[in-house]
């Protein structure tokens, strides 16, 4: 009955609807790992669960607001929130002490199965992936959180892969292009990344590639942040690395 009701709610907030908003995250403890939620216009959305550093979902942080960019997904509520999938969360840099809601575990509210629980890991290390098998010119894309130039673990792997490919083929050119972007929020407001971020992302990336032994790196950036369309904004905060044989 509870799940039927949940389906009804999802239908009301429009399945597939993009939700872009800024709010304080909410942490909901469970018997296993905590869930991360956020409220917008009176509704609670489920963002994800605590995972490992290697996961694609990096949870938000208390003491900070979070920019949520996600699509309303089908399925029952998770941890009391409407699931957003795919979802991108960006921790906004300035400290906000008002963002401090940690809810205790409650009967009936359970986190989805977690690849790793809250204790030490039970998973054995997976064998390292086989070497990249790209051929010809290949563009690697590294995505960033809003207003951020920190290279998260997954991005770190992409850079390593790009460097390995460039070195293996003796690339004739490695072009690094940095971009900043605008996010069109669901309430119509626009959030624009800070000036100079595209350059900083690009220069940092070039430094990394050179440090990893890649020769012939050239750098460019687009000073004007990409316009926001409210749908694909998270994918525009990026650095592109074009490796040409």
């Amino acid at each position, binding site marked *: 009955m509870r799940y039927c009701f949940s389906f009804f709610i999802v239908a009301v907030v429009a399945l597939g609807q993009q939700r872009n908003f800024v709010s304080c995250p909410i942490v909901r403890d469970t018997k296993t790992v905590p869930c991360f939620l956020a409220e917008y216009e009176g509704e609670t959305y489920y963002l994800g669960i605590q995972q490992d550093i290697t996961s694609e979902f990096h949870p938000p942080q208390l003491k900070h607001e979070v920019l949520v960019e996600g699509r309303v997904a089908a399925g029952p509520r998770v941890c009391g929130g409407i699931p957003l999938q795919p979802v991108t969360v960006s921790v906004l840099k300035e*400290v906000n002490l008002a963002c401090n809601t940690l809810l205790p575990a409650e009967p009936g509210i359970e986190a989805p199965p977690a690849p790793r629980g809250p204790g030490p890991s039970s998973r054995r290390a997976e064998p390292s992936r086989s070497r990249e098998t790209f051929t010809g010119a290949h563009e690697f894309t590294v995505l960033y959180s809003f207003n951020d130039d920190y290279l998260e673990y997954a991005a770190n792997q992409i850079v390593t892969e790009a460097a390995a490919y460039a070195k293996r083929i003796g690339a004739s050119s490695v072009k690094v292009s940095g971009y900043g972007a605008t996010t069109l929020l669901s309430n119509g407001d626009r959030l624009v990344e800070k000036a100079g971020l595209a350059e900083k992302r690009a220069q940092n990336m070039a430094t990394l590639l050179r440090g990893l032994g890649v020769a012939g790196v050239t750098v460019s950036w687009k000073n004007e942040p990409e316009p926001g369309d409210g749908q694909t904004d998270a994918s525009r905060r990026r650095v592109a690395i074009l490796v040409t044989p």
Partner: protein
Amino acid sequence: MRRLSLVVIFIATIALTLSAQYQDRSKVTWIEPNSGAVLPEFDAFDSNEGTLGVVNASGPVKTEGHAFFTALGTNGRACVNCHQPTYGMSVSATALLERWKQTDGKDPVFAAFDGSNCPGLPQDKESSHSLLLKRGLFRIPLQWPPKNADGSPKPVEFSIEVVRDPAGCNTSPQFGLKSADPTISVYRRPRPAANLKYVVSGGRPIVLKTGMLADVDPETKSPVAMNLMSDAREATLQTQALSAIMGHEQAKVSPSRKQIEQIVEYESQVYAAQAAHIFGGPLAVPGGPAALGPVALRDHKAGVLGDNDYDPVFGSFNSWKGTDYYRASVARGADIFMFRQFWLRDTAHINSIGLGNPLKRTCATCHNAQMTGQDLSAGWVDVGTTNYPTWTEPATWADSSELPVFKITCSRDADPHPYLGRVIYTTDPGRALISGRCVDVGSIVMQQLRGLSARAPYFANGSAKTLREVVDFYDRRFDMKLTDGEKEDLINFLGVL
């Protein structure tokens, strides 16, 4: 009465067991430079709660003419002054106080340059060395702003202001921030120069915590682990040795390459850990926990992640469960370390690197490297020991603290400290004094957890006199809600490492 008898039996067992493997050198507590002593392959020293074992993996070490044991500078000091085998290759505050009394403050360890609160103070007074004598803290003078390898100033994201300066060094016209050579003086414990294969292992090209390139070995150009020293300012044991000789030993002439290599060779083969405990008896025995004792450190592979339930950080203590009171307590402490969940909160470079804040995990999440409990990735973390309000100094203004207090103001363009914002009060900015980054303020490289009983006080600022105070800090900081029994178990566990 029965317990007393058991204790006597344990102590007798320790003596008998150690006499077979280790030479009895409990009378030697301080090795002076140029002493000419020969250090055996297996050595043992009285420690606070039993016996510290020290292993020289390459065999007996002749100290005569050896660069680690020879004063190479102008103040009579050698490396061994601050890295004594007796004290787990560090030095305890108690030992320093004894040394002061024995030598009337004339031992070179009390050199004005960094063995006193400030070189300008009257050096014959005990009060001028109070930070060393009470907390085991040496003065670390660091140029501000920091410099690149080519001597150019590094860009910095914050301004720094001295708001309290009990020792007078940071406001000194000669030695301070506004001197001709602007310098920040912070006060830190010497780290153990043992078990170093673990400390230097695990260099990766990109630092997980910053997303930036790791420092490289200036000779091999390979990335380094960046886990040396409190602030990772030295890339390798070689550069650290050189820097220590030119700084702590105040050498006027650079040491030879051979001398540096001799120091590094010695440091790379010496292992120190608790070998026996007054209640636990000999620790490294067949069928017991495999990680205990210095021989285990010598033989184990470095660079292995232990934050897992199948091959934990310090191995399994299950064989001690259900045995005598003390060993059972240690085994429970090991379980608390590995499995007791709590909310890790507001810790820069842990919660802020994509793991979320708060993070429901255990001690082993951060102390994850097998055998030492350091962090396998470059391990500087702001656990809160130096930054207000969680710092280990009195919570409110008090004259009892002798550490300086700095006000850090981050620029508007910089990323702020993730949990303290743009204005931070700190007794030691830590890694930020090297990186110039606001997010690093208060971040200190994690220490290894071996040989703890021999080298109190703890934390980089020497603020915890006992392991109880260490555990109390974490209990408070992360609201762990440990019971007194759990605290005792955790302390007993840490005490046998």
